[in-house]
């Protein structure tokens, strides 16, 4: 691995209004790097879903995006409540989001499956009471 470009963000868990700022910024950065649009779209959607999750389920956290020669890696770390049953959380339609989140347009239980679908690999580590760490990768080699 030669040069790895790293972008770091604090994801504010206090207000839903700013959720997604980091993903919008990453999309701009990746465009500046001249990466293919389809790659940019996949990375930014996966990160956006993860960022929204950190805000609505975990009170915020940290995001890091590493752009290497043959892959882009997204790491999301929070110190929220953790996920008790990851397999269940990964199922399309499973959501613990309260009604007020649904009225904001989220909480369909589609985020985690969507993150998996848009990336080439995804690893979730979570401990109840401790927090959650998600690492996703999108390959840059065709």
């Amino acid at each position, binding site marked *: 691995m030669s040069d790895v470009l790293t972008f770091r963000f604090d994801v504010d868990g206090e207000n839903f209004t700013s959720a997604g*700022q980091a993903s919008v910024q990453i*999309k701009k950065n990746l465009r500046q790097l001249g990466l293919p649009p389809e790659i940019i779209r996949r990375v930014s959607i996966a990160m956006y879903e993860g960022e929204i999750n950190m805000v609505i389920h975990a009170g915020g956290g940290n995001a890091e995006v590493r752009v290497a020669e043959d892959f882009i890696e997204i790491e999301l770390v929070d110190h929220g409540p953790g996920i008790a049953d990851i397999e269940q959380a990964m199922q399309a339609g499973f959501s613990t989001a309260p009604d007020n989140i649904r009225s*904001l*347009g*989220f909480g369909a239980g589609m985020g985690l499956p*969507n993150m998996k*679908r848009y990336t080439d690999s995804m690893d979730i580590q979570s401990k109840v009471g401790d927090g959650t760490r998600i690492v996703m990768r999108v390959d840059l080699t065709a």
Partner: protein
Amino acid sequence: MKICTIQELLSARVIVGEERLGDHVYSACGSDMMSDVLAYVKDQAVLLTGLVNPQVIRTAEMMDMICIVFVRSKEPTPEMIRLAEESGLVLLATDKRLYEACGILYSNGLVGNKVKRAAL
């Protein structure tokens, strides 16, 4: 279909993005659930929605959409307008309801296809 045609068909007001009204779009989708837009939409360039919060703008930007139509006379906030300007999105507002607005565009040839569930 040109965005200005959408504007005419829906008697919509242009909130921002006047300079892109001549752009062509080929498909659209309508939803109040951003979760579903993120999960099911593929190449639709237009989002019709009754939901008003900054996540609508960010969702559209993530999906590489170029135009959002707010239905039922919903007005975006100044912050949303600023975000849309930054992203180069066109914002329109119509007093029609979601069902009617989608129906008008669909029957005038703006399809909703390319909606695929799992394929990338």
